């Protein structure tokens, strides 16, 4: 165990985990303990936002695992995120109990409203938290497993895979839009009251969710690190770089791909499950192909194949979005669109690549100035 840990934790990883720990401690303290009048007070609004960014960061890490290390570009990862979200949303709906507007003890409001007589079978069990948590992992995981099993065995690769993942999420979006499906149609699931008995509108619960998101992100990140630094990780990188050659060397490429794809879907599901109570709604637009494409863009902006980069990319792009939609509502799309173009053209390795380049330049400068030899920049892993 310790060897796995020490292997997984390089400088980037340590710094990243440290930063997460700082967020997990400092933000709740500044929100709850510091009085509102103080300049250091972090408003509840910010807590919810940071929590949201953390969930997106976990989604980005999960995409990076398959795209950055295994070369599978999924343009439908938002589907797994949303499925995890729906699983959590169903639990939260059941928790409302008879506090809905119609006061029905079992049926959620939208079912009463559409004259549904009884709870559909697939809603059973979601009143139990453990069951919902299980489903958060199982539903996206199972879908990814079945989908991957077919797709990888048939050797669907490259853009074909990307496009059919998009077809998958698009089909799911249309399906969830249907009111007959029993997931609330276009409105989705909303008006949640509490989670495990904690009021979702209280600051303490929000802080708790933020900490949970930090822990989930850290755990997800560590799992991914552990995988990519292992022998297994070497094989998936080999698959990324030369799939046929790896297959000819005797590795069962399909099995490797299937494993990371399923794992990645589970991580995305967890991200979705944490996202829903923090934003207070889950609806079919989360399945929109555009959302999945955006998530891929976070990864590219942060730096593909670095795990830390995508997390930072997700946080930065979404922070930019929050800020621009508030401050420059008329022109923010120009800025965001421009950012994507500029990053692709000038930062092919994303922010992490930029950091590497800067450090390289710095060390060369130092080399010249002080003649002190500095180790070769460790961005190789990010190739």
């Amino acid at each position, binding site marked *: 165990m310790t060897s796995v840990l020490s292997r997984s934790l390089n*400088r*980037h990883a*340590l*710094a*990243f985990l*440290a*930063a*997460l720990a*700082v967020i997990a401690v*400092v933000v709740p303290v500044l929100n709850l303990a510091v009085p509102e009048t103080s*300049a*250091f007070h*972090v*408003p*509840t*609004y*910010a807590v*919810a*936002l*940071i929590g949201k960014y953390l969930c997106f960061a976990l989604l980005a890490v999960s995409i990076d695992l398959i795209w950055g290390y295994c070369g599978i570009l999924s343009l439908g990862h938002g589907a797994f995120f949303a499925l995890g979200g729906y699983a959590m949303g169903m639990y939260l709906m059941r928790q409302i*109990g*008879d*506090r*809905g*507007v*119609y*006061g029905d003890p079992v049926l959620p409001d*939208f079912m*009463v*409203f559409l*004259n549904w007589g009884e709870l559909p079978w697939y809603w059973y069990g979601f009143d139990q938290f453990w069951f919902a948590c299980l489903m958060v992992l199982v539903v996206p995981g199972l879908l990814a497993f079945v989908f991957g099993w077919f797709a990888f065995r048939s050797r669907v690769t490259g853009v074909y895979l990307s496009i059919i993942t998009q077809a998958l999420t698009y089909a799911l979006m*249309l399906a969830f*839009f*249907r*009111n007959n499906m029993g997931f609330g*149609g*276009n*409105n*989705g699931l*909303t*008006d949640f009251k509490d989670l495990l008995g904690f009021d979702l*509108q209280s600051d303490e619960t929000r802080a708790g969710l933020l900490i949970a998101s930090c822990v989930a992100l850290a755990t997800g990140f560590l799992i991914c690190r552990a995988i990519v630094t292992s022998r297994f990780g070497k094989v998936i990188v080999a698959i990324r770089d030369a799939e046929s050659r790896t297959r000819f060397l005797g590795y069962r490429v399909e099995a490797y791909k299937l494993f990371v794809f399923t794992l990645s879907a589970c991580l995305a599901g967890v991200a979705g499950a944490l996202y829903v109570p923090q*934003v*207070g*709604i889950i*609806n079919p*637009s989360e399945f929109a192909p555009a959302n999945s494409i955006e998530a891929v863009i976070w990864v590219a902006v942060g730096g593909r194949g670095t795990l830390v980069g995508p997390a*930072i990319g997700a946080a930065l792009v979404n*922070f930019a979005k*929050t*800020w621009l*939609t*508030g401050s420059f*509502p*008329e022109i*923010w799309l120009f800025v965001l669109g421009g950012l994507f173009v500029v990053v692709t053209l000038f930062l092919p390795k994303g*922010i992490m690549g930029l*950091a590497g380049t800067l*450090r390289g330049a*710095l060390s060369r400068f130092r080399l010249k100035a002080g003649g002190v030899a500095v180790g070769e920049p460790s961005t190789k892993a990010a190739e």
Partner: protein
Amino acid sequence: MSSNSLSLRNLAAAVVVGIGVLWASAVQAADTIKVGILHSLSGTMAISETTLKDAMLMLIEEQNKKGGLLGKKLEPVVVDPASNWPLFAEKARELIEKDKVAAVFGCWTSVSRKSVLPVFEELNSILFYPVQYEGEESQRNVFYTGAAPNQQAIPAVDYLMNEEGVKRWVLAGTDYVYPRTTNKILEAYLISKGVPKEDIMINYTPFGHSDWQTIVSDIKKFGSAGKKTAVVSTINGDANVPFYKELGNQGIKAEDIPVVAFSVGEEELAGIDTKPLVGHLAAWNYFQSVDTPENTDFVKKWQAFTKDPKRVSNDPMEAHMIGFNMWVKAVEKAGTTDPDKVIDSIVGIKVPNLSGGMSEMLPNHHITKPVLIGEVQDDGQFEIVWQTDGLVAGDAWSDHLPGSKDLKADWVDLKCGNYNTVTKKCGGKGA
């Protein structure tokens, strides 16, 4: 090594600090009253919502010309929730917590309203919602200035039944909650009027549906059973243009199978050549063609404000105007913008609407409105062919749905949005 990890930690920390700085910078500017405008300016809903943002800016400018409110200037705060429903909730929170707005005017789709509801409840602020909607809701912090189903759908069906002698009904809609509910209500209503079930056809299509060949020909088929047939359309904004184009081209004339729409106004018609559509109907509480001095004045101001002499006005704009004027009056009456006081003082306030009546805010947070039925003209306007004698009171809970016929909303005496008149309990409190 240390430099490296430091730079990374800095980066991560910068995000946190950056956010903090933003809040710090948003300290209340001097003596203005802020009004939040929460309408999508990008994404799929921008098509409808941008107009409302402009309308709000015009209303606020006008009010400021009149000297503002409580001696202070009004300051609009515009944000872009980008047609993204979770972002609506986030932006609502930003407006209330960060910008400290006194009230918010916004939302279009039901899902965006549902998304922000908990935020307004938690932070105790005020939302004015200007669009016709499915009803089945009454929340203390929300004022519904658009039509409830009984202010739009039912009078329209009555008109078709009495004036056109319609016996057979196609209820066509986009598959989301507003059409679903409206059609449920209408189906129950039609059956109660003795229309047999086989004379009602219900059809749902996805958002943005653009290939209407099959459905229009199905409608034609359904309409050729020897009974007068009409289509009641709750098709959502974007899908209407291809729908009407197909209707026109397949030669379905209003004289034969009239279509009455609840989501098609002047703005939507601006994208279509309406010559083949003359005579199809729409039911609203306002049309640009309303012939009153108030409306002429309003349209003139609007066209001047947008610097576009052809710019059309529509029903949700009027709803925002009514809502805004009600809020102004309520604030003046209360002498403060404090939400609790405004919520108490706004009920019972009457302001003129653009069709010559006085709309009143009711205890269920809906308003009284006239119902107008208009026929499409070849210039993209509506000719009003029928209107209710007086104003119709908005009903939050439909009497035609089994789940809601016993419910009642009253925020003055009962202090409850979903009081059950049978159990004598306020349902939402979980009692």
